[in-house]
């Protein structure tokens, strides 16, 4: 998967978790939480969807890596490039 593919995959997951939010203008270098209504339970949903859809495990110590789109893509690249 390319970086663009990973970005799309993350957006799709967030879209399913937050169906009422407009994700069109998400800035890639700002945190998700400051732009959309994403709380800690929603965040755990993201981790669960990565597990369910892509068999990817994100250990708790790595959660800060998923704070922004850019950092998420960077973090997930080695785990998802083979997909």
């Amino acid at each position, binding site marked *: 998967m390319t970086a663009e593919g990973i970005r799309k995959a993350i957006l799709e997951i967030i879209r399913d*978790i*937050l*169906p*009422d*939010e407009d994700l069109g203008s998400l800035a890639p270098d700002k945190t998700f939480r400051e732009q959309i*209504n994403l709380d800690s*339970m929603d965040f*755990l*949903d993201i981790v*669960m969807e990565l*597990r*369910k859809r892509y068999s990817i*495990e994100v250990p708790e110590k790595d959660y800060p890596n998923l704070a922004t789109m850019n950092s998420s893509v960077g973090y997930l690249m080695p785990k998802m490039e083979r997909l």
Partner: protein
Amino acid sequence: MVDWARVVITGVGLCAPNGDNLSQFRESLLAGRSGVEWFTTRYMPQVPAGVCHFDQYRYQSKKAARRGTRAGSISIYCANEAIKDAGVDIANARRDRMGVFVGITEHGNVETENEIYNLAQYNNDIRFWTHHHNPRTVANNPAGEVTLNMNITGPHLCLGAACAAGNLGVIYGTQMLRLGEVDLAIAGGVSESIHTFGIFASFKAQGALASHEDPTKASRPFDKDRNGIVVAEGGCLYTLERLDDALQRGAKIYGEVAGYAYNSDATDFVLPNPQRQAECMKLAIGRAKMTPGDIDIVSSHGTGTNQGDQYECMAIQEVFGGHKTAGVNNTKSFIGHAMGAAGALELAGNLPSFDDGLIHPTINIDNLDPECKIDNLVIGSPKRVEKVDVILNNSFGMLGVNSALIVKRFVN
């Protein structure tokens, strides 16, 4: 004897298989229109069930619906509809003085079945169990979701009383108002029970699940060919207020809580006890300072089981035989058994009788069972009477919980 404050019903919010509000519900009841349809549930062939079609997103965001439960969605819809119907300006009201009291037969079955099914898709690897499970399955979830949705900071809880829970919600709300612990009670009952296969399967195993080639005819209380229960979802929440408060704000008043009683059979897990049911009705009538002859409508519990219906008729005959009630009717024949919502919904369907002088019928009685012959059973089409002043609403549940709630026309 304490001089309790008078408590009145000032708003109704409901969803039933045959109506998304009181007006539609009442119209369906007068027109003989069933809300039962074919329903697909896990591991079982199609079953008749009472399915609701209200607009789930009218008051709830998609995100909240995804996070919460169906019972929560039903509760949120009914609570908002009731507050709107009551004309309460919730933005400026004392929300710390509002309470939410929701009767449920069960809660957690749906969510647990779904999670176990989901887990099995991942080889029972526990990492795939949802973090949402606990807040979804705590017994207060339906009432709690209302408080979250409406920013209500007064007390909330769910009451477990099997199929009597809908009456119990109203009873508890009345008590809380009389104790002065709240100024407005959002009270009644809900059911999401069609979304669990376990309830259908258990009734089937007991030989108590209704079947019929036409789902609208499957729920047939008191009919000779009845063969069990049709499970339904639904909800009915009332706004209840002390009379003084209702009058002060010029509220519309549907009726007044005249009396109530609930007791226990102490007999059997499943089979009812007609003596205790009769005692319960008599207790409620006595507390309302009435006699059986004062009751105009007996809204029966009647679920369509062989013995249950028979025993209730014995109890009704014992209490009312020899007195002239205007009519006995049954709502489950239209919508099936709405579990925690049943008591509240069945009362609601009769409230408009105070205004229109009609007693809605019981449908699907093609041949009345001779063991269920009670005086003045209204069958097939509505009965017009001179007037209706008092309704007695029966709801009985497993483990022998009985309830009788009496609502009368409000007279100042």
